[in-house]
């Protein structure tokens, strides 16, 4: 049939046209009847006129488009009209998704930054096992393994080029490990179901410049299935949080700081269980930085925050646990206090007397003393197992030895000391 020329009026042509017309008319009638009978709340965007015009004007495609995408399912519609009630018949994942989406996103634990707040479940929010990522001849990640407890605020530290951004991109599903395993909230990283529960802020967030902040947040919320009043409430709260409520201009005109704040707001739109932040404070002024850190601290116990940075003061301020990464490998992972303590930082005393050698001799045999070393000030640096006992007994010991005490103070290692010590070891 098709190999021959078909005159316009041939029976084959007429038959084919008749089939096409019948299909088109059938779809058109189906779409129009559905459109007429369906409540406005169950039509996408609630605007039936636009769909009506689309169906009538765009042959075939319009009705198909409406039937495929223009109708809100009854179950979703119920959730749209009453977000406080999770649909009973939905599958477990959908229930969980809606429950998370409807939950308040911020402020439940206050902005105190209390590190004693308990993690949500005690499970691992992130598990990386021997992850290797190779670009050409270069290994950006080289057997990286770490585990992040759920509900914690986790600092991911490393020098430039250490593999921080690559790790975050793998966790967010934008890249895949060459070898090894990356799991997020118990699932393989990158799946659509996993992405429902994460929020992601890249180091330089990019937005649609023609949108306003409110439009972008609405768009982001809709991608998570938020609609109607629930969406508007969330958008308003996030605009307030990002201090962008009164900004009506398009994002194209925003400063870097404004974009960063909007980036953080969009990452919170779904009340994420895991918040992945890549250098979140790098573009902010001191006040903006403080606000972001307070916000991160307030999420402790409710949301796992995994943020990379090279600003050590930020980590010391809000993190429970840190991992230090260099050349694609974790070289240390521990709680901040533990990390400093493990390296003799928390239990270190600096003491200066008129005769350090005599003091060193007098200290021999003290059970609370772990180690002894000369200090740069000319005194002694003592690592002790029991700080309180040492602080109580040391002055008496000095007095008993007939020495003159000139200085006695605790000398905590800063995270920076630890970082430089660990990362510097492998450097030429």
């Amino acid at each position: 049939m098709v190999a021959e020329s078909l005159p316009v009026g041939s029976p084959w042509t007429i038959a084919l046209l008749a089939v096409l017309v019948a299909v088109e008319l059938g779809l058109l009638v189906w779409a129009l009847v559905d459109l007429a009978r369906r409540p406005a709340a169950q039509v996408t965007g609630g605007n039936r006129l636009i769909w009506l015009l689309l169906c009538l004007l765009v042959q075939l495609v319009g009705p198909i488009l409406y039937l495929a995408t223009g109708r809100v399912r009854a179950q979703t519609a119920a959730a749209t009209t009453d977000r406080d009630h999770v649909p009973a018949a939905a599958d477990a994942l959908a229930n969980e998704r809606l429950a998370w989406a409807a939950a308040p996103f911020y402020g439940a634990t206050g902005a105190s930054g209390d590190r004693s707040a308990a993690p949500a479940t005690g499970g691992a929010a992130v598990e990386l096992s021997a992850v290797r990522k190779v670009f050409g001849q270069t290994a950006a990640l080289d057997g990286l393994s770490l585990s992040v407890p759920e509900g914690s605020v986790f600092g991911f530290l490393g020098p430039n080029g250490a593999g921080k951004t690559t790790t975050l991109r793998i966790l967010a599903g934008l890249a895949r490990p060459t070898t090894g395993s990356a799991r997020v909230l118990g699932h393989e990283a990158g799946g659509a179901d996993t992405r429902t529960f994460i929020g992601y802020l890249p180091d330089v967030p990019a937005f649609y410049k023609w949108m306003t902040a409110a439009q972008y947040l609405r768009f982001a919320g809709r991608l998570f299935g938020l609609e109607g009043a629930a969406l508007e409430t969330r958008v308003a709260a996030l605009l307030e949080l990002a201090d962008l409520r009164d900004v009506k201009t398009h994002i194209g005109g925003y400063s870097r700081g404004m974009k960063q704040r909007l980036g953080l707001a969009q990452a919170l739109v779904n009340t994420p269980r895991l918040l992945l932040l890549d250098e979140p404070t790098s573009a902010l002024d001191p006040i903006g930085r403080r606000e972001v850190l307070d916000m991160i601290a307030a999420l402790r116990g409710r949301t796992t925050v995994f943020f990379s940075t090279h600003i050590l003061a930020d980590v010391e301020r809000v993190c429970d646990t840190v991992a230090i990464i260099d050349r694609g490998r974790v070289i240390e992972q521990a709680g901040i206090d533990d990390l400093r303590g493990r390296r003799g930082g928390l239990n270190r005393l600096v003491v200066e007397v008129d005769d350090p050698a005599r003091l060193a001799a007098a200290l021999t045999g003290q059970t609370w003393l772990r180690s002894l070393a000369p200090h740069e000030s000319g005194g002694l640096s003592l690592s002790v197992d029991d700080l309180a006992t040492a602080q109580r007994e040391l002055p008496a010991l000095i007095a008993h030895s007939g020495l003159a005490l000139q200085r006695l103070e605790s000398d905590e290692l800063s995270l920076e000391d630890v970082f430089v010590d660990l990362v510097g070891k492998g450097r030429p």
Partner: protein
Amino acid sequence: MTGFRAFFGKEVAETLHTWRIWVLPGFLLFSAVTAPLFTYFMPTLVDVLGGQGSGLSIQVPDPTAAAAYVEFLGNLTELVMLALVIAYGGIVSSEVRSGTGALTLTKPISRSAFVLAKWLSQLVVIAVAGVAATAICIGVTAALLGVGPAAALAAAAGLWFAFAALLLSVMVLLSVALRAPAAASGAGVGVYISLAVLGQFPLVSDASPAGLTSAGVALVLGEPTVWVAPLLTAVAACAVLLAAGLWLFSRREI
């Protein structure tokens, strides 16, 4: 398909809010108005230009509505298609390059939905603009030259739409495969020229999408033509190209 509706809405809104609205619809509407006008004034133009020359006499047939339609279809096939290829060189890659895609794709929208929403939204734009342009062309032609074979023009516009859908699918695949929009547009122009050349061979033209444009002209002129095979192969090619684009994009790192 997770996230399809939200992203489709964004794509349509973006088309309306940015320069994209002026490209294809602009060319289409321009062609719809100028084709009948050009046809109507052609004898006058030739007469005026001929009178100023060396006395060479050029015979121009009387303008007809069918000739205006053919002129319109010619514009659609050449001008609009080249505009399409250039405009959509970055249909997918521009979002990946700018970083907006990374923020979107870390939300629960599938990569298939991301690509399909882009394809379908632009197809709708082309369809709406195509219907409007055809109607305008018929109206302007009727005003200047009387009513022509409007039903045949509508059918020919339908075949052109299938050809546009095919080229759009080509651009989606190229934009996924090649990160640089200019490279994708260049390759797209190559595909377009190849189809135009292949259309000159009846054997190929009758059994492939390359015959869609010539079939449209034949329909308007009331000549016998083959359009079923070109249409079916175009639809099949769209499906294959889109499937390839989706597969490639699902494996790609953002």
